[in-house]
């Protein structure tokens, strides 16, 4: 019955499925009237009701009680329908499967319906790309607005088309495997996961991302993030859209959603680092700690002039970590088993970590993390894992609090350590080191002291880098832009070779800044590692190979060049971001950071070693800025190296990376 009986308009809903709009004024484009809807449901009662409702909405309805028939209908009339409404539970084919097929083949908006309103099911709909989910019994009001999905999709497609030249919305959305419940904050999930797992595992999973993760979350490994950043840079940060990025990255199993959420975080990160004053220098140490520390945290730390004694650092860390906890777990899994630098996770954190940390004391804490002076990679790993929210670094430190503290303490204890700490404070680099296990080390103290501290402003957390290669994480400089100098690597203090602290400051940190703690640090290290001897010896060493990576080294190379590696670093600098923190210039570029290029590595040769390492790392990181932090760790300086190496004990890889002879950065002598 009609409401008022006088709704002649409703007569449009003719019993037959003829186009209702036609009966109207004859205007064919009376959108949304005339919307061509295909409704699929095995329940005839529901189907009949839906059909009537849709007709009443003036849509052109085709009903179908079998999914297969629906598919063939769709295939036959490629452009015959505007939208599909499908039930979830159907005997011949699962509604989600139909959803995927439609999305892939026809790229039409699909609305799912079910009497089941359980969160999981609804989530499944979301992850499979449904544009809406209706709970049965469906009311006509719910159907009145379905046209919005059609319009929206068309708009997106068009926009994408403009931007990317390809229309693949549906496809990408349909990609996620059914069992994967990707949430947009995929990274967060990863963080947590990765934290728990060893870095190696994470690495292994990185590639798989969505498919192999224990939890259906994407692990934004260093490499992956590097790719991501490279893609973003290629497109231009303003024009980078998930679809395009996804295309450029060309990573199987990665979905547009993953990229979208990562991009969101990345943008936040960029904003943060650009806004964050470099002064963060607080702790360069940040890198030290478990890389997990969200890069944010590091940056925050950097701001602080951390002169905190280990204890305070610890507290800071805790504080920072506390904060960061909110941030997604992305905290990069600083602790990379191999290297302490578990950049992996940090990446995602960049957005988050930074903010928190930068601002507060917590930063300091981060630093603590960053400076796991003696942290073995494992330790760092542990740290990181526990660190969690903080981006990893911080957290870890806390968790391992003891560890980190001890580490820090260690750092603090030795004179160099204290120096480092101080320096670290200056360089809040730590922030970037968020994930970076920054040179945990202890060694860094000397180095750090130099680096970071000096630059406090920059927050070049890198100081810690010097400590342990693991610290490299600091590359994350995020936020604080650790002025490259902060790299602890430069540790100038510690690193005798470091020419003048320069490196640490800012430059080093800058790297980290940019790199937000991307884990890449360890990558860098590994690279460095390869370079080995060269790196250490030749300032450029590290840089050289790094540079290739990061074309972004932007600014980084501001480093005052004293020794710097310009030779090598210059290339790194390209990478832009601070990576190079190496000494001085390096970090300065950190500012640009966001792109992680470790630019500053070029700075001082001595420190370069570390820087190199850092830089290397920075470069490694996909874009770096995160890397920068790592480099800081590298501090390249031989001295630092040795220090680090000692600490590293087990990060064999670290050693090699740095080119040290078997010194583990992690094992920086306390």
């Amino acid at each position, binding site marked *: *019955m009609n409401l008022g009986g006088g709704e002649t308009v*409703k*007569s449009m809903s003719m019993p037959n499925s003829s186009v209702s709009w036609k009966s109207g004024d004859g205007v064919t484009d009376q959108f949304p009237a005339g919307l061509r809807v295909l409704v699929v449901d095995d*329940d005839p*009662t529901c189907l009949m*009701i839906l059909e*009537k409702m849709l007709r009443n909405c003036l849509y052109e309805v085709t009903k179908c009680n079998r999914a297969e028939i629906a598919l063939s209908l769709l295939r036959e009339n490629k452009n015959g329908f505007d939208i599909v409404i499908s039930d979830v539970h159907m005997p011949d084919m699962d509604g989600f499967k139909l959803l995927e097929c439609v999305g892939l083949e026809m790229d039409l908006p699909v609305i799912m319906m079910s009497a*089941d309103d359980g969160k999981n099911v609804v989530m499944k709909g979301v992850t499979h790309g449904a544009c809406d989910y209706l709970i049965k*019994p469906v*009311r006509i009001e719910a159907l009145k607005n379905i046209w919005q999905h059609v319009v929206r999709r068309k708009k997106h497609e068009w926009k994408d088309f403009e931007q990317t030249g390809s229309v693949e919305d549906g496809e990408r959305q349909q990609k996620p495997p059914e069992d994967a419940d990707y949430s947009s904050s995929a990274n967060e999930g990863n963080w947590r996961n990765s934290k728990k797992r060893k870095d190696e595992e994470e690495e292994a999973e990185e590639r798989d991302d969505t498919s192999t993760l224990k939890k259906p979350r994407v692990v934004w490994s260093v490499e992956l993030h590097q790719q991501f950043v490279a893609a973003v840079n290629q497109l231009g940060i303003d024009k980078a859209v998930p679809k395009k990025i996804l295309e450029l990255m060309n990573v199987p199993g990665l979905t547009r959603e993953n990229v979208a959420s990562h991009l969101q975080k990345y943008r936040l990160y960029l904003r943060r680092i650009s806004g964050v004053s470099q002064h963060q220098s607080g702790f360069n140490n940040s890198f030290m700690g478990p890389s997990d520390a969200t890069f944010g945290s590091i940056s925050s730390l950097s701001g602080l002039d951390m002169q905190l004694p280990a204890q305070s650092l610890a507290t800071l860390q805790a504080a920072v970590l506390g904060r960061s906890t909110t941030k997604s777990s992305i905290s990069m899994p600083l602790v990379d088993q191999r290297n302490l630098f578990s950049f992996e996770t940090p990446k995602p954190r960049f957005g988050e970590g930074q903010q928190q940390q930068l601002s507060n004391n917590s930063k300091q804490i981060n630093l603590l993390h960053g400076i796991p002076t003696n942290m073995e990679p494992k330790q760092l790993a542990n740290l990181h894992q526990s660190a969690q929210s903080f981006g990893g670094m911080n957290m870890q430190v806390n968790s391992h609090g003891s560890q980190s503290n001890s580490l820090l303490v260690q750092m603090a204890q030795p004179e160099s350590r204290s120096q480092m700490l101080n320096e670290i404070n200056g360089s809040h680099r730590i922030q970037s080191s968020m994930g970076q296990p920054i040179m945990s080390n202890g060694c860094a103290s000397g180095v750090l002291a130099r680096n970071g501290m000096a630059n406090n402003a920059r927050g070049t957390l890198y100081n810690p880098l010097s400590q342990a290669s693991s610290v490299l994480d600091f590359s994350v400089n995020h936020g604080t832009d650790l002025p490259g100098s902060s790299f602890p690597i430069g540790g100038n203090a510690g690193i005798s070779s470091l020419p003048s602290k320069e490196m640490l400051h800012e430059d080093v940190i800058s790297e980290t800044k940019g790199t937000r703690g991307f884990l890449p640090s360890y990558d860098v290290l590994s690279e460095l590692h390869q370079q080995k001897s060269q790196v250490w010896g030749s300032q450029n060493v590290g840089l050289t190979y790094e540079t290739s990576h990061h074309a972004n080294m932007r600014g980084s190379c501001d480093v005052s060049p004293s020794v710097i590696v310009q030779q090598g670093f210059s290339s790194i600098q390209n990478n832009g971001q601070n990576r190079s923190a190496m000494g001085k210039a390096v970090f300065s570029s950190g500012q640009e950071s966001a792109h992680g290029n470790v630019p500053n590595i070029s700075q001082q040769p001595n420190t370069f070693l570390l820087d190199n390492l850092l830089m290397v790392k920075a470069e490694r990181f996909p874009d770096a800025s995160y890397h920068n932090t790592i480099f800081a760790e590298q501090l390249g300086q031989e001295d630092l190296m040795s220090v680090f190496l000692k600490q590293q004990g087990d990060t064999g890889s670290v050693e090699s990376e740095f080119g040290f002879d078997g010194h583990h950065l992690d094992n920086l002598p306390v």
Partner: protein
Amino acid sequence: MERTQMHRQLANMRKSLFDQGYLDEQFIQLEELQDDANPNFVEEVVTLFYRDSARLIQSIDQALDKSTLDFTKLDGYMHQFKGSCSSIGAKKVKSECTQFKEYCKAGNGEGCKKTFQQVKKEYATLKKKLEAYFQFARQVGPVETACRPK
């Protein structure tokens, strides 16, 4: 007069169905869909429902008759059945269905069987009431539908 009385009677019948909880708001949605083009829409839908759900009832009965109960299957059937019930606004039947599903989840065979008896009972009761209602409505005359109070 009779007309009016009949109308009133019809209206009362309808009202009591709602008041007694046999029908819910979804039924009103159906009523609203009815129009000149489909003057008997509600009745058609209800008829379709009873016809289609009969086989589901049968499937469930058969499944419950087995010595070992397959709760997943039972739940599946019931899910479908419940969806249909809810689409016509069969309130009491629907709530029994919900109860049934709970028992399925708990793996309570006895609970399922007992509840299903309730489901069938409510299902039958509603059917009778609606049939009477529609019959009377036809008597009252199609014109009346438009005036049927909500």
